[in-house]
């Protein structure tokens, strides 16, 4: 941004809590992503077991 033309936006003070909030958001997203991967893997495992048992029956 051009330092001369700030159009009043320089009045915005960065919150002291910004870093903490960002850290928590990343942690939350990491946990959620891990949970989804586990869920997906277990679904795949169950599906493959079901498929495997069907093959045996036939």
């Amino acid at each position, binding site marked *: 941004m051009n330092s001369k*033309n700030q*159009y009043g936006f320089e009045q915005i003070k*960065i919150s002291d809590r910004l870093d903490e909030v*960002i850290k*928590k*958001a*990343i942690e*939350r*997203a990491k946990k959620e992503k891990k949970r989804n991967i586990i869920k997906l893997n277990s679904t795949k495992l169950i599906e493959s077991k079901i498929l495997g048992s069907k093959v045996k029956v036939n």
Partner: protein
Amino acid sequence: MDKIITTEKNQPSNDELFSDLIDIFKENLYKIAFSYLKNEQNSLDAVSETIYKAYKNIDKLKRREFFNTWIIKILINSCKNILKNDKVIYIDEYDKTKKDNSDILETDFKLSVNIDLYNAIDKLNDKFKSIIILKYLEDMTILQIAEVLDLPVGTVNVYLRRALGVLKIELGEECM
């Protein structure tokens, strides 16, 4: 071979890259959110939601150089959602402004240095406000704004002109 292994080991992980990018853009993200929401807690919520969504969907970002516009797009949607939930109503000044001209140049949007857009944008509706913030806080080009807001370039030009028309009424012609 050893050298290759060492180089690979020294390469930052995706998580580290993401954190580095966030570190670069975090203050800008907060400023954009605050310009929109004018409230510390809501702005922090918007940034938090943005980072959460960005981390979860980072695989969808095909080119790293578009990270800035991509994350700002997420942020603006988060701000809009917060405004919706807070039921903040802004006056749509759409009809008050003058007829639009499609042949507009970037230089037509140069404003005088001392103008206080930060306070004046509260008078604008969401779509006008987004464009003013991206143009005068983020210093984006019309093309970049069009990309972030998923609008045609011509529409961005027209909205920007209308937004400035509204601000002219609010601030007085002599301020612009």
